């Protein structure tokens, strides 16, 4: 067992799981899983030899043993939810423990004709048409190893379908609790969010660890479909312990005149990797991406994005900011593709980083591929330190050196946080980030 690497172990687990399925092995859903796991089997875990993974090394992870959980471990009284949840946030709440849906802890309060908010397993049974139409249709489980692994192993996640013209009153708040005590845990959350024409919905994915040291590996895929004029906001909050690995891929599809906002806040964790792909498939749609990473010690965050402008008259905007101290490592790769027919595209991208530790590192790379001739695109990547003039200005007003630095860093990331539209969440993020920055300045 010790000699087996993670890939072999997971393939074996899959084979065992399949053997127990009997007739269920013939379902379309299982066939998709099988295709995906076979693709993963061929590709294996990504290595630093691949351009996309140049700066993010999964070698350690792929040698470790992680176990998938099929049953929840904790009684509801053992989980102190109030310690984990965003305070004062009224929301439709779904709780997952190690990837397993906890109906007993969840509370979906909003009801409307045609509105479906469920865990994915339930949706497989109750919304087969939508599953057939959308599930696994956007994220590429044949060519991307981590998507393939997720698709092969995923058992549950969030399923949302908002009916035409329905505006959600409350956000959907999904709390993923990593609860690894005795052994390292792998979970593969899988989310599908469908916004009907003219509908509006906000989804929060919040990843947290239940304990300080437990090792967890969470590999999430989220597919988001915005139908005409739909407005969808998706927030990913990563706030796990130093022994965690959190990998997400968000694949969005924008129809005519739709808006999708993808927010990514990396607060705490060990190794973080986020990939956001936005396919701007029809005119007058807008793709927005906002991200903040505040990294200390040996933390690692790799944010990559692709905006694929496949149609004329659309807009995309991307703003990512990072503060890095200790020996932390940040990676940003923003790719904008403007295809031949995507005339009158407006695409903007900015990534700014401030290093506050001598050993911290950032690798940032904009990639613009423009094949149309009448477009407006801009990008800017900066890596710097705090402005000495600004520090002196603040000190001359009576702020200590530490306070002046903290104040400037808060203002720096504050520009991104302003984009968050859910006030209790924004306040929660600001408070967490403020506290972390303060700690980094001591």
């Amino acid at each position, binding site marked *: 067992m010790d000699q087996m690497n993670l890939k072999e172990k997971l393939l074996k687990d899959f084979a065992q799981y399949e053997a127990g399925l009997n007739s269920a092995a013939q379902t379309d859903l299982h066939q998709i899983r099988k295709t995906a796991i076979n693709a993963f089997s061929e590709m294996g875990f990504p290595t630093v030899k691949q351009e996309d993974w140049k700066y993010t090394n999964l070698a350690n992870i792929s040698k470790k043993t992680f176990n998938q959980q099929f049953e929840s471990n904790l009684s509801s009284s053992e989980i102190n939810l109030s310690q984990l949840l965003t305070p004062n946030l009224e929301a439709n709440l779904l709780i997952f423990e190690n990837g397993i849906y906890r109906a007993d802890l969840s509370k979906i309060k909003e009801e409307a004709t045609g509105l479906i908010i469920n865990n994915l397993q339930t949706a497989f049974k109750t919304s087969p048409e939508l599953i057939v139409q959308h599930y696994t249709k956007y994220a590429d489980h044949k060519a991307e190893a981590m998507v393939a692994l997720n698709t092969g192993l995923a058992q549950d996640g969030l399923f949302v379908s908002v009916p035409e013209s329905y505006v959600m009153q409350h956000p959907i708040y999904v709390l993923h609790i990593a609860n690894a005590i005795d052994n390292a845990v792998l979970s593969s959350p899988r989310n599908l969010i469908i916004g009907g024409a003219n509908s509006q919905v906000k989804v929060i994915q919040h990843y947290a660890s239940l304990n300080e040291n437990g090792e967890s590996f969470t590999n999430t895929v989220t597919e988001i479909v915005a139908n005409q004029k739909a407005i969808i906001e998706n927030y990913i909050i990563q706030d796990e312990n130093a022994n965690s690995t959190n990998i997400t891929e968000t694949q969005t599809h924008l129809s005519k005149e739709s808006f999708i906002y993808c927010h990514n806040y990396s607060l705490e964790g060990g190794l973080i990797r986020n990939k956001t792909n936005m396919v701007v498939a029809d005119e007058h749609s807008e793709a927005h991406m906002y991200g903040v990473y505040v990294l200390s010690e040996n933390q690692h965050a790799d944010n990559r994005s692709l905006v694929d402008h496949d149609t004329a008259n659309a807009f995309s905007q991307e703003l990512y900011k990072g503060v890095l101290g200790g020996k932390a490592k940040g990676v940003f790769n923003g790719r904008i593709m403007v295809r031949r027919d995507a005339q009158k595209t407006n695409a903007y991208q900015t990534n700014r980083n401030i290093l506050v530790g001598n050993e911290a590192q950032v690798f940032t790379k904009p990639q613009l591929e423009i094949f149309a001739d009448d477009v407006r695109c801009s990008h800017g990547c900066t890596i710097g330190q705090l402005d000495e003039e600004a520090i002196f200005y603040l000190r001359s007003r009576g702020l200590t*050196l530490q306070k002046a630095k903290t104040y400037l860093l808060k203002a720096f990331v504050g520009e991104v946080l*302003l984009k968050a539209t859910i006030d209790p969440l924004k306040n929660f993020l600001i408070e967490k980030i403020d506290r972390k920055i303060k700690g980094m300045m001591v």
Partner: protein
Amino acid sequence: MLKIENLKAQVEESGLEILNGINLEVNAGEVHAIMGPNGSGKSTLASVLAGKATYEVTGGSVTLNNEDLLDLEPEERAWAGLFLAFQYPVEIPGVSIANFIRTAVNAKRESAGLDPMNAKDFLLKVREKAAMLEINPKFMQRSVNEGFSGGEKKRNEILQMAMLEPTLAVLDETDSGLDIDALKIVANGVNKLKSEDNAVLVITHYQRLLDYIVPDHVHILYNGKIVKSGDKSLAFELEAKGYDWIKEAVVTH
């Protein structure tokens, strides 16, 4: 109140000597003006007083109310009652003026062992001071100095001064970039803040600001030294004769 004796300073990086033995004494209740041609060391003097790290003091002493100023960090100088109105105030995107000033006021209060000022008291006070400087309350929600006109920047500086109530205010080229109306408003604000207990050091290239902030003493700085001192008539003389008159006087000395 402020006592500068034989102050010498150079640029930290290049070692270029800029202040060459300055002597100056400012008493409570007084307004002093320091005038001089470009490159004479006026702004360097302001920066050295405030503790800017790009300058290295190589000799002399500065005391504020008998406290050795040169020994203090920039923030400790602010706590001791010094305020520098910057010639080029720094832009801080993402921070409102209201938040910035409140943070500064409370930092100073904290240094004196006082509780933070409550939101209501702060608001009342800042509104009152803003009105004095003809500042629209909406201005307070803008990001500090971001995209400000010259006049807005200087008014913001004087608003901070009004809120922090320093014992010694150093105004570094506060008239630069101001039209005559803005100049009057800013000068009027400074005059209202004047009392028997505080003092103002006005650093300026031109005499025109001194039409509105009338100095008790005028000093002419040249090549890092005060070469001539007098009353306000010296400013008029300088305006009439130009700086060449001083340069020649120094050379023939």
